[in-house]
Structure formats: structure tokens, C-alpha cells
């Protein structure tokens, strides 16, 4: 482990009060220097023009071929790509670390739009399991239904499903917002750590089970609460945020947000206290 020492020489970030310590020894830590920003190279990104539009028919392509072609089109500067005939194929539209308008005319299978950072994606059909897993930033809109593990482990961005979703929506999510226009299945928000989930319809059993943090808003009925998921007061600030978010998401703009339920972590399962295991059991 690196030694932590106070040193007199300051970087710009330290001068701004962002860091008071410097790691010495063998460390991988790097500080962002705004003066050098233009020299930073983000692998897999291209300068694209949103007005430059093209179609890509993937009916006879494998997922790998389709993804490679999307990358190739971005490298040519296409900022709007319309995918024709996805036909429920798996793992399409993954690993896009770029600003991009990506439109799917049809449905996706499993693991669509995985590990993306930045694109705006519209899917005119449905999606299978694990859509937009690990999304870092961007916006993904699904016009129909979605399968289970929708938005698993996302870190940021907006993920919107206008229909209903399966089980374990937002499992392990660490940021961002998931908005569901219809109903959601069991274990929604399971082990979520940060971020927000909005469900306008009903939700299944074990809502927010073992959630560490984050917030879930539910407009309909709740099947049951999971371990350590508790009700919280819906504030005026929450309502304003919900209205704004639903409007931007083009979903439920006229929904009566004042009736929504707010669910948060009770934090009784947190391991950051001094409770003995037997005491912890009692707390649960």
C-alpha cells in the first residue's frame, strides 16, 4: 500500500482544495489537469455529426459484426445510426463510449446496450434480460416491455421503459435513474447502492431487498417490502424532481406524483456499526 505523506508541492487540484494528501510510492492515481484536457484520449470515441445519418440492416449479421459496423460508422462521423431488423439478437449496441443517436427499429435480445457511456438510444420494440447493464451515461428509451435485470449495475444516465419490466430491475445499481411506465417484477432495486428508480405501475414482492442506499418511487401497489426497505416521506423537492424527470423522459407527464410512495434503505443491514451478529439478527 502506498504511503500517505503531507508534501509541500501542490498540484492544481490540491491548490483548489480538492486534495489535501498526496499518495507516494507505487500508485496508479492520476490527477486531472484541466490544462492538459485536450491531450486526453478516450479510447473508442470519435467526432460524430448528429445530422449525418445512416441505416444499418443487421438481419444477416452476428452481434459481433453488427457492433463492429456501428463502430466503423461512428469512425466515419455518422452521429445518427438507425438499426434495421435487430430481430431479438443478443448483445447489440454494446460498448459505445460516444455521443451518438442510436435508433433500433425492432426488438433486442439479452444484454443489449451493455457497458455504454454517452449514447442516446431509442428502441422501438422490447428488450430482453440485462438491458443497458453498467450504463455510465446517456439515455436509453424502450418503447415496449423489458425483461429481467433491467439496468443492472448502472452508474449513471437515464434508462426508461415505457412498458413493463421483469424481475430484479436496477439490481446493484450505483447511480443514474430508471423509469418504468408500467409494472415491475419481484426484487426490484435488489441491493441497489445509489441512484433512483421510478415505477408508475405496480411492483412485485421483495421491493428494495437489501438495498444499501438510493431511492425507489412507486405509483401503484407494492407486492411486499424486502429486507431493510422502508417508507420515507415524499417531500416537495421529491415531487418537483419527479415531475421534471417524467416530463424529460416523455413518460407519465400528467401522473399524480403526490400519491407516490418513497422507499429507502432502513440501513439496519449496514455493517458499519458495532452490532454483534446476534444483535444484528434482532435488528432485522
Amino acid at each position: 500500500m502506498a504511503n500517505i505523506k503531507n508534501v509541500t508541492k501542490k498540484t492544481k487540484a490540491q491548490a483548489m482544495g480538492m486534495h489535501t494528501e498526496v499518495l507516494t510510492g507505487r500508485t496508479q492515481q492520476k490527477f486531472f489537469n484541466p490544462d492538459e484536457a485536450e491531450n486526453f484520449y478516450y479510447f473508442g470515441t470519435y467526432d460524430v455529426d448528429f445530422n449525418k445519418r445512416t441505416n444499418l440492416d443487421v438481419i444477416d449479421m452476428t452481434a459481433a459484426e453488427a457492433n463492429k459496423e456501428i463502430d466503423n460508422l461512428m469512425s466515419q462521423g455518422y452521429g445518427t445510426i438507425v438499426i434495421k431488423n435487430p430481430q431479438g439478437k443478443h448483445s447489440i449496441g454494446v460498448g459505445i463510449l460516444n455521443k451518438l443517436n442510436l435508433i433500433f427499429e425492432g426488438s433486442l435480445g439479452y444484454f443489449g446496450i451493455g457497458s455504454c457511456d454517452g449514447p442516446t438510444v431509442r428502441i422501438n420494440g422490447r428488450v430482453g434480460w440485462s438491458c443497458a447493464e453498467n450504463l455510465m451515461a446517456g439515455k436509453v428509451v424502450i418503447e415496449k416491455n423489458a425483461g429481467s435485470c433491467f439496468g443492472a449495475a448502472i452508474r449513471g444516465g437515464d434508462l426508461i421503459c415505457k412498458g413493463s419490466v421483469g424481475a430484479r430491475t436496477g439490481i446493484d445499481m450505483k447511480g443514474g435513474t430508471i423509469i418504468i411506465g408500467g409494472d415491475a417484477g419481484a426484487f426490484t432495486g435488489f441491493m441497489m447502492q445509489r441512484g433512483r428508480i421510478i415505477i408508475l405501475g405496480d411492483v412485485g414482492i421483495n421491493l428494495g431487498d437489501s438495498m444499501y442506499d438510493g431511492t425507489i418511487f412507486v405509483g401503484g401497489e407494492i407486492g411486499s417490502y424486502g429486507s431493510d426497505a422502508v417508507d420515507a416521506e415524499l417531500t416537495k423537492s421529491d415531487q418537483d424532481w419527479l415531475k421534471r424527470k417524467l416530463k424529460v423522459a416523455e413518460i407519465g407527464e400528467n401522473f399524480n406524483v403526490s400519491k407516490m410512495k418513497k422507499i429507502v434503505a432502513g440501513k439496519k443491514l449496514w455493517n458499519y456499526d458495532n452490532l454483534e451478529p446476534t444483535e444484528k439478527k434482532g435488528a432485522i
Partner: protein
Amino acid sequence: MCGIAGLIHRGKSSNVGSELQGMLQALKHRGEDSTGYALYGDTDGKNFIMRFKVGENVGEGSTSVSEDVSVYDERKKIVDQTLSELGAKIVKEERTLPYSLRYELAYDKKDLLEFSQRIENIPGVEILSMGKSLEVIKDLGNAKAVCDRYSLDKLVGTHAIGHARMATESGVDIKSAHPFWGYPFSDVSVVHNGQLTNYWNNRRALENKGMRFMSECDSELIAVYIAQKMREGASLEEGMKDSLTGLDGVFTYFVATKDSLGMAKDTMAAKPLVLYESDDLVAMGSEEIAIRSVLPQEIDTYDPFDGEVKVWQI
């Protein structure tokens, strides 16, 4: 992993053999150790169709052994003799492969328990299916290989369920392949994706009630469990709903009868299922691409929720 698929045409017949082959072939990446079909064909309903095997196709991890064709011939003779003793007349006989046979039988008794016990008491013989519409065909290999081997693509009927298997709980052989017949009920079949964790407890209890297990495959339990519930007077749907608490583990399964098709999903919703439903067709599979093989146009599909049971009639 395994993949399951099923479809039911309501109000008409179609080429279900070819359609199910396409659906299962689309799922072959979920497992191609073995593939099985339960096809409900158009028949006049007079005779029973018995699909049975007199030997095994042995793959990796199987507890069975490969045997000489002469052994199969000997077993077939004993089956024929036993059928005669039971009062069943062989109307038509087909031997697709040395170990796999299809008989059309004129048999007027409704209770198939004694019938099945007598036939399966012959060492090495297993009834794959018995019914007036149902035919279970299963063997090693992917959907296309099995379909070609048994010439299933021409079969016309109303509904079908099938299974592409990746062997995990038991060996690669026909006895562990799906679908399983709902012994001793005519025209009942089951396919399953998942793992059952209270298999042995349930198996012991069911065996004490006189039910039989032909393999060590946990999925067989579903067929036997529901068959027992039906023996006790439950409807198919009631038996399936009961299974959600009686069976422990993760599962999505289909059950088909002569005139209906049902699905059940465990309360954890841990196994996938995509469903398409319209007035004249219901198609479902572990993945959307299975449905796409019969409905390439843009359609509305959805995932059934946890603990959901649905049954459709033809």
C-alpha cells in the same frame, strides 16, 4: 442452462414439427446435448400412439451402456408379447432407429398405470409418451439433427413444446432428456428450465404413492408431481399453482395436455421466459429469438412475472 420453447395454435392446425424445430434451433446455444419434442398431432383419436425406446443413445456422463442391436430386438419381442397379454393390438409399427419405436395401438382401457408398469418392467424399456395425440421424440444432438433423424418437420398439429438441453444434473442420454411424459396420464408432457433443490424429498414421497421415476434428472419431478396432483383430483392449472410452493428451486416450465398448454414461473423469477400472445397463436421461449423464428415481423412480447401460471386452450 437449457432452453425451452412452446407454441399453441388456437382454432387451427399448423406444421408444428417444423415450427418447433426452428424455435429450438434458435436456442441451440443454450445447450445441444440433447433435444426433445412433444408434438400434439392431428389424429382421429381412436388409437393410442406409444413412443418408446428399447435401448439408450449414450453420451457423456450417462449411467447407461451401449448395447448390441440384437438386445433391442429381443426387448421388442417381449414388448410385443406383453402388449398382446394386455389386450393391446398393434395397428401400425414404425422403427425409426434401432432403439426407438412408434406403435399405434388399439387399446380400450383408460387407466394406463398398469399398462405402463407392465411395459416398463421389461428391463431397458421406457415409454417416452402415451396418448391419442401426443408424441414425445427426444435424442442426442441439436434440434435440427433430431428433427432430421426422426423426420419431424412434416408433422401437423395444434401445439407443441420442446427442450434444448445442456446437461448439468445428470448424464447425456435419452432417459434424462426432456420432455417428460406425465406418467401415467395420456397426452401429458413437461419441459423445464432450471434446477430443483428438493428433488429427493419429493421423489421419495411420490414413489411411496406409487409413482415412477425413470431418470435421475430433477426435471422429471415436475411431470410426476403434477401427474400425482391430477390423480388426486386437481386440474392442470391447480396442480401447476400448487407446484410453486411444493417445488423448491428456480424454474420455468411448460406443461401440455391434449387440448391445452400451460406455463409456470417460480417465485424468484430466476429463469427467463418471453411470451407472445394473440387470439390465434401463443408462442413462448427462453429467448425472444425463438419466437422470432416463427414470427419474424415486429410483435409485442413480454416476460411473465414471478409466480405466474397461465394455461391456454386450443
